[in-house]
């Protein structure tokens, strides 16, 4: 496995997320690098094993490339004229941090189910009343990333 290409694949997946709001299929990645789908799949598996991104179980579909989510969630982030989904309350802030952009965020309180909105404007948060609960200590985050 070519280590340089491995990190180029990681970069391509993240750039694709940033540009389109969703991950590239393994076929799109293979075409971009002019390699076989099987080879692209091996790079996807290696990046998954290194916790660089998370594949759906038994597939080559990218579920998470933190802070981006490959599936709809309760954390909707509008930035740079696009609408992204974040994996969790932390990642909804991670998207404007990764994009270095302003953002308008719509989310839901986990227990009350009330809608909440906040904005990032010039690096400042408009709603300072909200709280984020980290249920697990850092040492256990990767035990089950979907739960985390």
């Amino acid at each position, binding site marked *: 496995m070519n280590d340089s290409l491995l*990190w*180029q694949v*990681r*970069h391509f997946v*993240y*750039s694709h997320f*940033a540009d389109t709001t969703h991950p590239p299929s393994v076929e799109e990645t293979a075409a971009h690098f002019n390699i076989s789908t099987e080879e692209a799949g091996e790079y996807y598996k290696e990046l998954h094993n*290194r*916790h*660089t991104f998370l594949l759906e179980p038994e597939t080559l579909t990218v579920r998470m490339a*933190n*802070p981006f989510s490959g599936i709809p969630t309760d*954390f909707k982030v509008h930035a740079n004229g696009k609408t992204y989904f974040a994996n*969790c*309350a*932390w*990642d*909804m*802030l*991670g*998207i*404007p*941090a*990764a*994009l*270095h952009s302003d953002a308008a965020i719509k*989310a*839901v*309180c*986990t*227990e*009350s189910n*009330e809608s*909440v909105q*906040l904005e*990032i404007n010039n690096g400042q*948060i408009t*709603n*300072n*009343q*909200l*709280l*984020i*609960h*980290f*249920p*697990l*200590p*850092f*040492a256990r985050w990767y035990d089950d990333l979907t739960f*985390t």
Partner: protein
Amino acid sequence: MLLFRSEEWIDKWCQLNNLARGEVLTIHQVWELSKLWYHNRLSLEYHGRSVEQVTEIFKQAGLTSKFWYI
């Protein structure tokens, strides 16, 4: 990581799910952590982090309790 409108809702969620309370940060604290954690995520040069780098980020964000030990 879960979003809540108040401490009251966090306690209620923990009780209903029979889970111990973890660490609660203000949204401002998490925004500061996000900038440290994610600012270079789209870079080709980002290849993940060492234990020392993660420890330094938590320290810079003021997260020094045992909860954040690696």
